């Protein structure tokens, strides 16, 4: 048996519009329960939907970013099913003639380039949220009801959990770049439902597709897909049939590892009784409108990566890290542009190193977004220039950077407030310190053994060697670091 996994992904992304899909209510996710609702999104008798033009634009934008063909003529359809979080008992969605179809997204999996085809991208409305209380009582919050939702359906082109995750990461990056979705999985603004089955490439035998639900992180997607591949493989190898099912993922806990179980079998599958939505007229995406949307398209992640490599002479790896988020890439470019001295490539290399090093470390530690960091790109450029000119040592610069990161003060201000006299050449000073330490090994040994008062002697020697021009505090710092005390 030569088995191969077949994976397709359905992604639901909430669109970043200010108002809902078919009414004027706000999409504010922080509003109190049932405070951003109106007769339209709660399906009062007699109300009618009106299409949110901005939402259509954002889907077309997505279609363009995913290399889709954009429909010049597109319609909405009613998807009829009964559920209390759906006040009309039908969802306005798209069935025939979706806005975008037949696109692709290129991804990089362990150094291999893979092209994942996109079947369709369509527009629909979100449902409300149900809350089941401890008693036998359910409550409904209709705030989310009618929030514009985009569905992106891939072809079953992925062959491993790694590919599924990479596709999802790359897709989210694109959606964030083009400003259509926050991409937040935990909050549910970016949801994923993988379809998984396994095929024997020799006999052509296939298992029934599992549609996986309840995945709210990349990790969950990866683990659940892996779990299903293993399950299907095992059953197929045993010669058992695997029925088509909707399965729910249960993340691992203390008692057991993550697993899936059956939510619905195919026999219970819905008949959605789709038909064209008679309350809405067909959408026409004219050439003018399409050109306008095209003209407003930002640079996409892949384009940016390639440009970073050619423009800044960065390695593809560095370019990839720096372009992971649009804000990070923008910060990088602004910092490089603010560097006055030297060649662009050199400046880029320095900025890249600092952003991937200190900046990333501090962002991770504080959980901040780079866009919210008080230190601006020009401050970073200024600091790096001080280092470059030899006015600050690397280690001192890191301290200055940390304060800059917290306060947003420019480097020269921090330096003067701390009494760090920027005179002489920092690396020269370090050289002198090293010389003094080498000349007085016995004193060094004393300090290391705990007699820290002897350190004053070493500082004095350095001051003497520099004829008093060095700043004692800096000298102290350098000695401390060298001796590791």
């Amino acid at each position, binding site marked *: 048996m030569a088995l191969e996994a077949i994976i397709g992904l359905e992604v639901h992304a909430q669109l970043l519009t200010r108002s809902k899909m078919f009414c004027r209510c706000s999409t504010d996710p922080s509003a109190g329960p049932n405070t951003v609702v109106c007769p339209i999104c709660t*399906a009062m*008798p007699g109300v*009618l939907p009106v299409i949110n033009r901005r939402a259509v634009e954002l889907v077309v934008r997505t279609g363009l970013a995913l290399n889709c063909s954009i429909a010049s003529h597109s319609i909405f359809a009613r998807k009829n099913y009964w559920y209390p979080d759906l006040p009309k008992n039908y969802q306005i969605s798209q069935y025939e003639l979706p806005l975008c179809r037949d696109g692709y997204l290129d991804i990089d999996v362990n150094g291999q380039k893979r092209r994942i085809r996109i079947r369709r991208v369509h527009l629909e409305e979100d449902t409300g949220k149900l809350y089941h209380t401890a008693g036998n009582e359910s409550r409904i919050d209709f705030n989310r009801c009618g929030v514009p939702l985009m569905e992106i359906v891939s072809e079953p082109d992925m062959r491993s959990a790694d590919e599924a995750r990479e596709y999802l990461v790359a897709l989210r990056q694109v959606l964030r770049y083009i400003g259509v979705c926050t991409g937040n999985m935990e909050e549910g603004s970016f949801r994923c439902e993988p379809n998984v089955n396994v095929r024997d490439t020799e006999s052509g035998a296939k298992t029934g597709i599992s549609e996986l639900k309840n995945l709210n992180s990349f990790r969950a997607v990866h683990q659940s897909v892996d779990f299903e591949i293993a399950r299907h493989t095992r059953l197929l190898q045993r010669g058992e049939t695997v029925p088509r099912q909707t399965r729910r993922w249960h993340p691992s806990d203390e008692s057991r590892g993550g697993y899936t179980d059956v939510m619905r079998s195919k026999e219970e599958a819905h008949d959605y009784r789709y*038909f064209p939505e008679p309350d*809405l007229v067909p959408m026409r995406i004219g050439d003018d409108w399409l050109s306008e949307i095209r003209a407003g398209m930002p640079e996409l992640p892949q384009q940016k990566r390639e440009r970073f490599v050619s423009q800044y002479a960065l390695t593809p790896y560095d370019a990839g890290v720096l372009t992971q988020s649009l804000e990070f890439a923008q910060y990088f470019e602004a910092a490089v542009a603010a560097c006055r001295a030297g060649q662009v490539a050199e400046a880029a290399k320095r900025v890249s190193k600092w952003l991937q090093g200190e900046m990333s470390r501090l962002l991770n530690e504080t959980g901040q977004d780079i866009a919210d960091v008080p230190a601006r790109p020009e401050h970073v450029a200024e600091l790096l220039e001080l280092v470059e000119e030899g006015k600050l040592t690397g280690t001192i610069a890191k301290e200055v950077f940390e304060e800059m990161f917290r306060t947003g003060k420019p480097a020269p201000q921090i330096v003067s407030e701390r009494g760090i006299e920027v005179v002489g050449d920092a690396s020269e000073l370090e050289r002198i310190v090293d010389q003094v330490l080498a000349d007085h090994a016995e004193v060094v040994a004393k300090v290391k053994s705990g007699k820290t008062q002897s350190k004053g002697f070493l500082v004095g020697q350095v001051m003497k060697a520099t004829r008093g021009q060095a700043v004692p505090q800096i000298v102290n710092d350098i000695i401390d670091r060298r001796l590791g005390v």
Partner: protein
Amino acid sequence: MELFHRTAHELAELLRRKELSAVELCDAVLGRIEAVEPRVRAYVTVMADVAREQAKAVDARRAAGEDLPPLAGIPLAVKDNMCTVDAPTTCSSKVLEHFVAPYDATVVARARQAGCVFTGKTNLDEFAMGSSTENSAFFTTCNPWDLERAPGGSSGGSAAATAAGEAIIALGSDTGGSIRQPASFCSLVGLKPTYGRVSRYGLVAFASSLDQIGPLTKDVRDTALLMNLLAGHDPMDSTSADRPVPDLTELLGRDIRGIRIGVPKEFFAEGTDPEVANAVHAAIRQLESLGAIVGEASTPTVSYGLPTYYIIAPSEASSNLARFDGVRYGHRTSKPVADNVELYEQSRAESFGPEVQRRIMIGTYALSAGYYDAYYLKAQKVRTLLKRDFDKVFEQFDIIAWPTSPCLPFRFGERGDPLSMYMADVCTIPVNMVGIPAVSLPCGFSSGGLPIGIQLGASYFEEPKLLQVAYAYEQSAGFHARRAPLGASCGGEA
């Protein structure tokens, strides 16, 4: 003639000249309601207090020298499937028995703005599904011309109220003939405008692609005046047409010499009451004598109108009515239920009437997987063929003329079998399927004194020409001047 029997344009003139106050007129109509409503039963809700307040406000504005819209102070009845903030909107259904909308339908808002005085909400077949008001969950409305007969439907309450003098003018809705057939049965003028001419926002949907609101009045001029108020684009309804609204009174009185009138032979099919056919043919001869050029037209696919309507309308209805599930609206079953599905099923079974349930089932079936192509999709294709037929007819003719109803107003219970009731709409349904405007107007009476209506149709947005021809006929024939005698008893029971 009593005030309540006069037309809106006559009364508007008296109001304008201050020979009559809106309060006096309002009291006259409310008095009439008190006198005859127990026999006619046109209203689900009489809005006496609201009406008096509105009439007072109009008088105050006029006294202050304000220049008021033409229909300010005119008592208007509203079919009870259009939302009003100050009265329940029941759709004559138990499901919405206590529902008060938090908003006005666009047409209601426009009428309110124009100073119309709301007499009340009128009875209808439940959710506008029917042709007699016998399907109302509350009670049956009687035809003021013969209280033992149906006023037609589904806008039977609006028609009966206007014919009985319980309102001066009224709003109806027409999905398959629900304005025109009651107009014909009650000797009124009833216009189903071009689809998209009037906003549907706030009209509780029956079949979205067919529903259209329009006037029920005593003469063509009143219809023109009320349409001037109703017509126009509404940003809240994307199916409403964004195009200019001509003054429909402008062409009234112009002669109709040279206007080409087609008579579609298929509409005089077997089963048309001979008295109806005779009256309509006589009316067509009269139009000819006024200078119109009359010829035979053909719409070969028209016989498919009725069967395809009974696929499309129930399909849309099955989805439109899904929201009435007992979770938020109206009746929720008091029986213990195991889950949501049972809650829906039990609540809906207990609260929807048999005709509504029948149509929901037909529509659900027609949209189901495996049947969609054979029914809904096929019906939509036939609809396209119907449109082509009518397009061709309008290449040759300006106006088409045929009966509104193949039969005279029938007795209660006479059409108990649903299919024979559906057949009553055979002449009106194709118009909705195609989307063109059509008006029914009085063209005579049967030997037994029952009203007969002629239907005139025109191409899309040709309401001005349509009413021009209707007006010319009406003025020369004069049937519009007669008023219902209002007999002594009422045969209809809920």
